[in-house]
């Protein structure tokens, strides 16, 4: 339903463009990465994750977040071209 709505709302954008953008959105889901960061923190605070596990996870997630933000910035500024 979501896909259909999204396409209907944007009739001027080609279907391929829209699908590609959605795929990128999902792949670089900023909110999901932020949730993982918070969960990592919570599990560490509860003593279920060791400090080294926590640090490794945190570093990885922060790196992912940075990339995701960059992708989104490019998407909104139109600097990522969708090829057909």
């Amino acid at each position, binding site marked *: 339903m979501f896909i259909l709505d999204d396409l209907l709302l944007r009739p001027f954008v080609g279907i391929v463009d829209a699908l590609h953008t959605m795929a990128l959105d999902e792949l670089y889901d900023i909110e999901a990465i*932020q*949730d993982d960061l*918070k*969960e990592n923190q*919570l*599990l560490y*605070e*509860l003593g*279920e994750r060791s400090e080294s596990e926590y640090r490794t996870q945190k570093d990885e997630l922060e790196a992912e977040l940075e990339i995701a933000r960059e992708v989104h910035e490019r998407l909104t500024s139109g600097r990522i071209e969708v090829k057909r």
Partner: protein
Amino acid sequence: MSNRYVYGITDGDPIEFEADAVRGGEYVYTVTHRRLGAVVSDVDTTELEETDEDAQRHDEVLREIMDRTDGRGVVPMRFGMAFESDRTLKNVLRGARPAFRRALNDVEGRIELGLKVVREADTDVDTEAIETAVADAVEPIADQSVPNGLFSDRLVLNRSYLVDRDDRERFDEAVAALEDEHEALTFRYTGPFAPYSFVDVEIGAGR
């Protein structure tokens, strides 16, 4: 170092103390405009990047301000509010005066407490029953509460509560009783914080 980083807004007598402040600042003080005070430390930029260390310093300074204002309350600012000079800051205090006054009234004598209920990995729980049990136990003591994001599958409940300082002990006891009643769950009880979740003063223009 003529830029001012703002932690929160208070009223009444100015406060000052030494602290491990944001971006290496060491001294926290008040910039006032007609009894409204912005509690600040000096910084070298108005474009602050949020690091874990600085976010923690922001929280700790706010906690210290809460202790020092003892019941008068502080309207906490979100991380990252910095102004070019005393003048621009005073302009903001002047312009947003009614909003700050209202917010100060809302938080006077109150603190924020956080409660997360976490279930064991790979177990099913009756979320609704837990929500009801928690609500019955603590909502009557709190003035207000707001839900926070359930950012993990393990989270059953995540809320912030605005509680009168005088009711703090009753709230502690209610949470302790909940913990006793639900041994299979973990209760993560945090605070007191400055009431971030209950005041929403947006400042931005003319920074």
